[in-house]
């Protein structure tokens, strides 16, 4: 297995433990997000790894647990964040895209300071069939809500819901017929 590519089952998952990898360039508030994740009470051990890009450095390979879920943090104000995510996606194994990846976009509603179009981001998310969540770091409550949502997905990915796999969740939907992100004429 190529060490450059992250694989969900390269290591043995541990029971009652879940690990999430938060990827975002410097400037996207990974630390704040990680802290809001930790503030939620969960009955299992939650480990968070933060990184700025993929592939992950090799020196920590041995101490790293199995990554159950990957969350990409994007900042609409920072053009580098989108390009970095594009590049990082190449280093992620395809089986992650069966429900183990999500994209979190901050400042999605703040149109005036966008560097790129929101449609570019949605196009990226749809091309890998992963959900896009919108977070507002200014409001603490919002952070908590999004953190809860991510934890829900993480729990499914870590196998804590018996019988439910992320792929099963994905299978409930159908792919888009029209180009996403455009206003469909109603």
């Amino acid at each position, binding site marked *: 297995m190529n060490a450059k590519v992250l694989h969900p089952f390269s290591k043995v998952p541990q029971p009652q433990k879940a690990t999430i990898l938060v990827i975002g360039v410097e400037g996207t508030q990974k630390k704040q997000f990680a802290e809001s994740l930790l503030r939620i009470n969960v009955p299992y051990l939650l480990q968070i790894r933060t990184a700025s890009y993929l592939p992950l450095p090799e020196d920590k390979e041995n101490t790293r647990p199995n990554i159950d879920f990957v969350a990409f943090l994007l900042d609409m104000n920072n053009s580098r964040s989108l390009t970095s995510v594009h590049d990082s996606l190449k280093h992620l194994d395809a089986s992650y895209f069966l429900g183990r990846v999500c994209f979190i*976009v901050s*400042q*999605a*509603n*703040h*149109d005036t300071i966008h560097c790129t179009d*929101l449609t570019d981001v*949605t196009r990226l998310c749809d091309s890998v069939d992963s*959900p*896009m*969540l*919108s*977070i*507002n770091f*200014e*409001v603490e409550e*919002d952070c908590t*809500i*999004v953190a*809860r*949502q*991510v934890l*829900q*997905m993480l729990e*499914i990915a870590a196998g804590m*819901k*018996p*019988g*439910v796999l992320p792929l*099963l*969740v994905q*299978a*409930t*939907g*159908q792919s*888009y*017929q*029209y180009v*996403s*992100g455009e*206003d*469909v004429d*109603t």
Partner: protein
Amino acid sequence: MSQSTSGKKKRTQQEAESHQDANLDEQIDYFTSENSNKKNRNHVELSLALSKVESVAKEQGLTSEQLITLLDVSASGKFPVSTSSKLIKCLLPSRYIPEEAAIKCTSWICSGTPARELQVFLLKWMVLTFELLGRSEKLHALYGVIFNFIENDSLCPHACHLLYKLTRKDDVLPFRVNRLLKLQKKVGSQSYIIGLLSLYKVYQPHLVVLSVPASKRIFFRVIERNWMVEIRKARERSLPEEGRTGATLHTVNQNTGVTQISKKRKRDVIPSAVTAAVTGERLTDLSLVGSQLSSIPSEQIKSFEELLNSVDRLELPGQIASVLKSVVLQHAVACYQEDQISQRLGFWLYETLHEEILDQPFSSNKARGERCLKLVINFTEFLQEGIPACENFLVRYLHTWNGSDYRPYILRLISRFRLYDFPKLNDLILEPLRKLFFCSSVFCKCQMIHTFTMMLKNFVTVEIPRYQAERGKGEGSQTSSEGDKFNISMFTISQEEFDFYGTVEKFIQFVDKLITVAVMAESDHALLFHYLLTFYELVSELRCKYNTPFVCIPSAGIVYRALLSSNCVQISRMCNIVCSYRREFSSWKEASKTADVWQGTRDLIAPFNQYILDFSNILWRNKAFKKDQVVHEPFLSVIPSEVIDRTKVDGPNDGLSVLRHIALVGYAYQFLKETQPKNKKLHPNLIQPKNRDLYLEFLQRHRLEGVLAFINTYIKRTSTKR
């Protein structure tokens, strides 16, 4: 002459204590008679007459004829200006001023007979007593004439004031605006000209370009305070007789033209209704019986009866969104034939929803957004149809929605989404909702399932009949000679053909998949199950109640989970659902012979029979794991018997029966306790076959009637029932 004057003098002195009215008439006669002396200095008769007239006028008011007479006298210039002006000041009515007086006044001014100051006085009188006018239709017809008065410098302020009160929307014409602007250039920026222009701007903003600083600008100065006091008294006198209800929605200080915009309006999202034709004073017009007003402004309509009475004359408010606040107006708007109302409303809603909710980067103050959404929801519920602008907004909002801001309102709006082709529907809202569904807590999942149930109900009850009527109308109108445009919906429906029943069926399948995975993920959460059972209860009645051409059955994942759950209510309700499918399928079967129903349903009969078989085997016939007849895909019987033996469970085949099912064994215990002697050791097997009916009735008494219904429907009873 001296004889007549001395005679009159005597008479006045003599009749000083006599009846007032006669006195008054005489005094007025004095004024009108040709022969009276016109000098006013030291002229006793004149001053007496004048004082008499003044006192009567101030206390009681004059009658219409007296008013007109005195008006003629004063305007004709018979007497010097001071007398005439005093006379004009006492032109106070007892009830109301006849329109004729106002017209006469105008014509006197036009003729130029009275002196300049008198003309000014006459105009002032008209302005100040405007509310006391009985009707102003004819006066309004003289609008152009009065407009010409503005050319006269001394008359201009008062003419502008009068015009300010008279103006209606149709009076604002480009040439008038131009004349006012020219006048403004000539004399400079006077407050009265600006006042009139600003009123014009309110009615026709595209004609007037100047910017007027809003609110609290005093346009027309008050000069004659005492006069105003008298007039107010006269008004109060006349008020109770007419029974006016002067309810103004935005207070206009009549004599200064100052409009006070309340602070709340700035904070309020939905504007209040202001019709073009109304300023505060117009209200008096309607109080007269048989008024011939062509249009009634919508603020007048306070109740439904009023609406019905004047529905043909209704004039809708300038700010269409104020309709959202008044239920009565919503009725009116819903019946409006023209498209422009719905378009205006759509425009406004689109902009407002985007501004209030989408464009708020930091959602701190949610109260405004909530109020706005509540009003929109009320309107949608009233109309029972979705608004395209709302749908547009929802689609965009769901993109970046975090699933919890304004959740109840957004979900409610979603439940009124209109019917589209399924791929479109899926793209627009179902996919985003699905993604949020699996991220959210179990309570949010319940709310979403409830929304889906409401959506389905909406589709079947409202949307499909609407589309069918629309299609039917499309075919029928070519043949119908009347060309009766029967509008069923307020907002335009897309004309493209699509298979609406197909959408509904696919929608049900979509929700089914969602529910199946959700219930696994949440480990049979009771509340979640409740909502999904409600959904299936609706699905199981579609054919019989709503005449769909197909039947949809729940997937095996749900049905068997309900059967094996540890919650008795779930078993009972699932049994009920399975029962109601009998009616569905039989009705479908009948219809398939003759009418146009979906043949795909035939394939569902086999799996459904398997459900029935499994239910009866497990619950009643004690053949849970036995390899019995198999219709479709077997359920528990696939488990090999060796495995069953290895579990070392005692009596596995009847372990899931009505008597020993984990959810129902408590009830069995209760039943036995009630029916068996006290000290007997209780075991479910004590309920022998013949007592099972009693037991089922016992369950029915405890509101678990589903099982009994199932047994009665599907299992042919050989034994007689009691």
